C-alpha cells in the first residue's frame, strides 16, 4: 500500500504543505470574513431600517458600513482562530484520504531521523499525497447559510436608501386656541372704544368707561401684533363681562337698597308694573320704552298718578342712598308730559287728515293708540309725513283752517289727555299756514320717523353699552371664537337673528327675551354640536317667569373668589378668578328645572 512516490525526497514536503495550508487557511479566513460581513450587513440593515423609520435619511447609507465592520471583525476572528499545522494536516488527510499521513509527517518533519526510521517513509508518503492533491479536493468550505443573508441585507439597505422616507408623524395637536390670530382691524372693538366719549353718570363711571375703552384699545393693538387665540378670547370675554357689569351698574352695590325702595314704591302702582319689572332687571332701555308707552296711553289722571308714583319712588331711592336711581326716575317723570304732548299732537294731526292718511296710516294710528310705544310713534310719524307730502297747498290750507276751528272746543290747558290745547292747535295751524311752517313740520315728522324718540340719559347710556357689548361679541367672533350668548337683563327684541353678539343667528324671532342667537348656521366650527332638540314641553321651562334682575335671596352681588378643584364635597386650592356679573343669578336664568335650582345653586354658591 506504499505510494508510487515513496522514494521521493522528504525536502519537498515542507513547501508543498505550506502551499496547501496557505490555501486552506485563506479560504477559511475568507469564510470568516464573509460571515462577519453577512452579520454586519444584517445589523446594518436593521440600523438602516431604524434610520428610515425615524426619518434620518442621511444615516441610511451608513448601514453598509456594518458590512465593512463585520468583515473586519470576521478577519480578526479568522486570525484568532487560525488553524495550526496539525489541524490543517488533519484536514488535508481527511480530504485526501491519506490516513493521517500528512498529520504524522507534520509531526515527524521537525524531528531528527534517518532513513531507518519511519519518518522518511511517512514524509515521503505525505509528500506524494500532497503532490497528487488537487485544489478541488482540498478546497476548504467557504460558504455557509449565513452568507446568503449578505446579499439580502445589502439589497435591503439599498432599497431602504432608495425609497422615500415615511411621512412625518402628525404633530401633536396644539391645545385648542393655542394658534395665533392677527387682525388688522376689529370693528367691534371700535364700538367699545367710543364708550370713552359717552356722557357718564358721574366721575367714577366716566373713569370706568375710560378704562373699558383703554382695554379695548389694548386688545386691538394686541390683535394687530398677533396673539394667541385663547388669550385674545379671554381678554375680550373679560371686556364683555366688564361692559355687562357697567350696564347693570345703576342701583348696584351701595345703591341697591335705594333701587329696592324705588321698586317697592313703583310696585304699588299697577300701571307701572311693566316699568318696575324693566327697572328691576336693570333694563333701562325697556324701562324707558315702558315709560313712553305709559305717557302716550294714560289719561291725565292716571298719568298724574304715575308721575306721583315716580316722584315717591325717586324720593325713596334718594332717601335710601341711591341718587342715581332717583335722578333717573325724576327724569322719566319730566319726560312723561313732553311725550304725552307730542303724542297728542300726532293723534290730532292724524285725525284731521282723515281719509288723507290712507289705510296704512289709519292702522298706524290704531297701533299707536293701542300701545303708545316709540316704534308705533315712529310709524305714525312716517305715515303723517307721507300724507302731508301728498297734500296740495290748498289742502294744507284747509287743514290749517280745520285746526283753527277746532281751537274753540280745545281745552285751555296742555296735557289734559283730551287732545291738544288751544295753544298747541294754534301753533300747528300756523305751521300749516305758511310754506316755511309746513316744511318745518315735515322735517319734524321725518325726524320722528327716522329715529325713535330720545330716551332718558340712563337709557341712552345703556343703549351705548349694549352697542359696545355687541361690538365685543363681534370682536370675539372675529378672533374665531363662538361668543357665548350673554343673557342680559331683560334682553332685546330679536332683529331677524342678527342682533345677537354671535352674528350667527339666522332665524331669530321678534319678541322679548334672549338676543338673536340661534342654534346653528353660523360661520364658526360646529363640529360636536348636538342637534336641535325639539323642546316640546320643555319650552315651558324656558319661558317661565324669571326675574333676571333680582338676585337670589342672600346672594352676594359682585365678584367672589372661586377655588380650583372645588367640588360639592371638597374644598379646592387656589383662586380661579371671580364670578362675572353675567354669571351671577345664572341658575335662575338657566333651564335647570325649578325643583333642582336650590341644590344646583348651593353647589355653585361662591365661597
Amino acid at each position: 500500500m506504499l505510494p508510487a512516490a515513496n522514494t521521493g525526497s522528504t525536502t519537498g514536503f515542507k513547501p508543498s504543505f505550506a502551499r496547501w495550508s496557505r490555501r486552506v487557511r485563506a479560504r477559511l479566513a475568507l469564510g470568516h470574513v464573509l460571515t462577519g460581513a453577512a452579520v454586519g450587513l444584517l445589523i446594518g440593515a436593521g440600523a438602516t431600517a431604524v434610520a428610515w423609520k425615524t426619518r434620518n435619511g442621511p444615516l441610511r447609507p451608513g448601514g453598509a458600513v456594518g458590512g465593512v465592520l463585520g468583515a473586519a471583525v470576521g478577519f480578526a476572528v479568522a486570525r484568532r482562530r487560525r488553524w495550526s499545522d496539525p489541524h490543517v494536516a488533519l484536514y488535508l488527510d481527511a480530504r485526501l484520504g491519506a490516513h493521517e499521513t500528512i498529520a504524522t509527517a507534520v509531526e515527524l518533519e521537525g524531528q531528527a531521523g534517518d532513513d531507518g526510521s519511519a519518518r522518511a517513509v511517512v514524509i515521503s508518503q505525505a509528500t506524494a499525497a500532497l503532490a497528487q492533491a488537487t485544489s478541488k479536493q482540498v478546497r476548504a468550505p467557504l460558504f455557509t447559510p449565513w452568507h446568503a443573508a449578505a446579499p439580502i441585507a445589502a439589497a435591503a439597505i439599498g432599497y431602504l436608501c432608495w425609497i422615500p422616507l415615511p411621512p412625518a408623524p402628525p404633530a401633536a395637536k396644539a391645545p385648542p386656541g393655542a394658534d395665533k390670530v392677527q387682525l388688522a382691524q376689529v370693528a367691534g372693538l371700535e364700538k367699545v372704544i367710543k364708550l370713552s366719549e359717552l356722557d357718564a353718570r358721574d366721575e367714577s363711571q366716566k373713569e370706568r368707561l375710560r378704562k373699558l375703552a383703554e382695554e379695548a384699545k389694548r386688545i386691538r393693538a394686541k390683535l394687530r401684533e398677533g396673539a394667541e387665540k385663547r388669550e385674545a378670547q379671554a381678554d375680550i370675554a373679560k371686556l364683555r363681562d366688564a361692559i355687562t357689569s357697567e350696564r347693570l351698574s345703576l342701583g348696584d352695590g351701595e345703591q341697591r337698597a335705594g333701587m329696592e325702595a324705588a321698586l317697592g314704591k313703583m310696585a304699588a302702582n299697577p300701571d307701572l308694573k311693566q316699568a318696575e319689572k324693566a327697572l328691576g332687571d336693570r333694563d333701562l332701555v325697556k324701562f324707558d320704552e315702558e315709560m313712553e308707552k305709559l305717557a302716550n296711553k294714560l289719561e291725565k289722571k292716571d298719568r298724574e298718578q304715575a308721575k306721583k308714583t315716580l316722584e315717591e319712588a325717586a324720593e325713596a331711592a334718594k332717601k335710601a342712598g341711591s341718587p342715581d336711581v332717583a335722578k333717573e326716575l325724576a327724569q322719566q317723570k319730566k319726560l312723561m308730559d313732553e311725550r304725552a304732548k307730542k303724542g297728542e299732537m300726532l293723534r290730532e294731526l292724524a285725525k284731521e287728515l282723515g281719509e288723507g292718511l290712507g289705510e296704512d296710516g289709519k292702522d298706524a294710528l290704531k297701533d299707536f293708540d293701542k300701545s303708545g310705544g316709540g316704534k308705533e310713534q315712529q310709524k305714525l310719524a312716517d305715515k303723517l309725513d307721507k300724507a302731508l307730502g301728498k297734500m296740495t297747498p290748498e289742502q294744507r290750507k284747509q287743514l290749517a283752517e280745520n285746526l283753527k276751528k277746532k281751537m274753540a272746543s280745545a281745552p285751555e290747558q296742555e296735557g289734559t289727555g283730551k287732545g291738544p290745547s288751544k295753544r298747541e292747535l294754534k301753533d300747528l295751524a300756523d305751521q300749516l299756514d305758511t310754506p316755511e311752517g309746513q316744511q318745518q313740520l315735515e322735517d319734524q315728522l321725518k325726524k320722528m320717523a327716522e329715529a325713535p324718540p330720545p330716551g332718558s340719559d340712563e337709557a341712552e347710556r345703556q343703549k351705548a353699552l349694549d352697542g359696545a357689548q355687541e361690538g365685543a361679541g363681534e370682536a370675539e367672533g372675529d378672533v374665531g371664537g363662538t361668543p357665548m350668548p350673554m343673557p342680559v337683563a331683560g334682553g332685546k327684541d330679536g332683529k331677524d337673528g342678527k342682533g345677537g353678539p354671535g352674528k350667527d343667528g339666522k332665524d331669530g324671532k321678534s319678541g322679548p327675551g334672549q338676543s338673536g342667537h340661534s342654534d346653528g348656521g353660523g360661520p364658526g366650527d360646529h363640529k360636536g354640536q348636538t342637534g336641535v332638540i325639539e323642546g316640546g314641553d320643555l319650552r315651558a321651562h324656558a319661558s317661565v317667569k324669571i326675574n333676571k334682575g333680582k338676585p337670589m335671596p342672600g346672594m352676594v352681588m359682585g365678584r367672589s373668589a372661586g377655588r380650583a378643584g372645588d367640588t360639592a364635597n371638597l374644598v379646592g386650592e387656589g383662586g380661579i378668578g371671580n364670578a362675572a356679573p353675567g354669571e351671577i343669578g345664572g341658575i335662575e336664568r338657566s333651564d335647570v328645572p325649578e325643583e333642582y335650582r336650590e341644590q344646583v345653586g348651593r353647589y355653585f354658591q361662591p365661597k
Partner: protein
Amino acid sequence: MTEGGSGESFEVRLVLAQKTSAKLREAIGFVIVGQNEVVDQTLWGLLAGGHVLLEGAPGLGKTLLVRTLSSCLDLKFSRIQFTPDLMPSDVTGTNILVTGADGARHFTLHKGPVFGQVILADEINRATPKTQSSLLEAMQEHACTIAGTRHAMEEPFFVLATENPIEMEGTYPLPEAQLDRFLLKVIVPSPTEDEMTEILVRTTGRERGEPPRVLSRDELMMLRALCRDVAVAEPVLRYASRFVRASDPTTPGAPELVKRALRFGAGVRGAQSLVLASKAVAMLDGRAHVSFADIQRVAKPVLRHRLIRSFEGEADGITTDQVVAGLIDSVPTRPEPVQQAMAR
C-alpha cells in the same frame, strides 16, 4: 523473509514485513479454512508482542490455529491443557532431586510447559484461579519465579489462550486483572457454509502434512521491532486516549450508552494495547504510521474484555462489542474546528 536485515531502510523492511505476513497467512491458510479476521487478529497480537485470548465454541479450530501458527514459526511450542486439578507447578515446573553421576544429589529445575515460546493455554478457564495466576507472571513479566529463583522466558514469548464460553459449569472465569494481560480477545466465529465444506474436504481425506515454516525467531523479533517503530501522530494518540477515557462511565461527557451499560471502563493498559495493536495493523497494511481507522479497527478485540458491564448492561443484553461500536460512533476523531469544516 530471508533477505533484508536491520540495516536496511524502514521502507524496505516494511515491504518485507508485508511479504512475510502474507506468507504467514498463506501458510496458516494451508491448514485453517477461512477465519481470516481471527488469523489477522492473532498476527496483530504476535507482532505487537502481546498475548491473545481466543474465545469460541468447541470445535471451531482454536487449538488447531494455534498449533498451525506455531508450526509456521520456528519457535518452541508447548501446550497446557487447563483442568481443574492442574497445579501451578504443572505449569511452571519444579525443582526435583536428582542423583548426579558422582552420586551426589542435588535439585535440578524441571521446567514446565510455560517455558516455551508459543504457549497454548487451552481452555484456560477450566483451571483454578491459583493455577491461572501461575501464568500471570509469565505473561506480564516474561519471567517465572520457581522456588525463589526467577527464570526469564525465552523471547519471543507468546501466549495464546482459549476458552469455551458455553460450558460454564465447573469453570473459573478469568479475573479482570488477568484478562487485562491479554492484548486481544479474539472471538472465533462459526465457519460459513463454504468454509465448513472446505473443512470437511480437508479433514476427511488424506493428510495434507504440516504447513511450512515461514518465520524464524530473528525475523519475528525484527518484525516486532519494526512494529514498535511505526509512527503515531499526536492527534491519533489523543484520539486513542479520548476513546479509552470515553469508555469509563465515570468520565464526564462519557456517552450515555457507556454510562448505562458499563460498570468499569478500560484503563491505561487498554490504551497502550490499542496503540500497539494499531501499529501492527498499520505495519501489516504497509504503512509507517497509524491512522484513526487503525484505532477503530482494533478497538473491539482490544477493549471487549476490558470493559466490565453493569447489571443494567447485562440485563439489557448489551455486549461490550456494542459499547465499543457506540464509542467509535460518538468519539470524534479530529479536533472540533476540523470536524466542523469537514461536516460542511
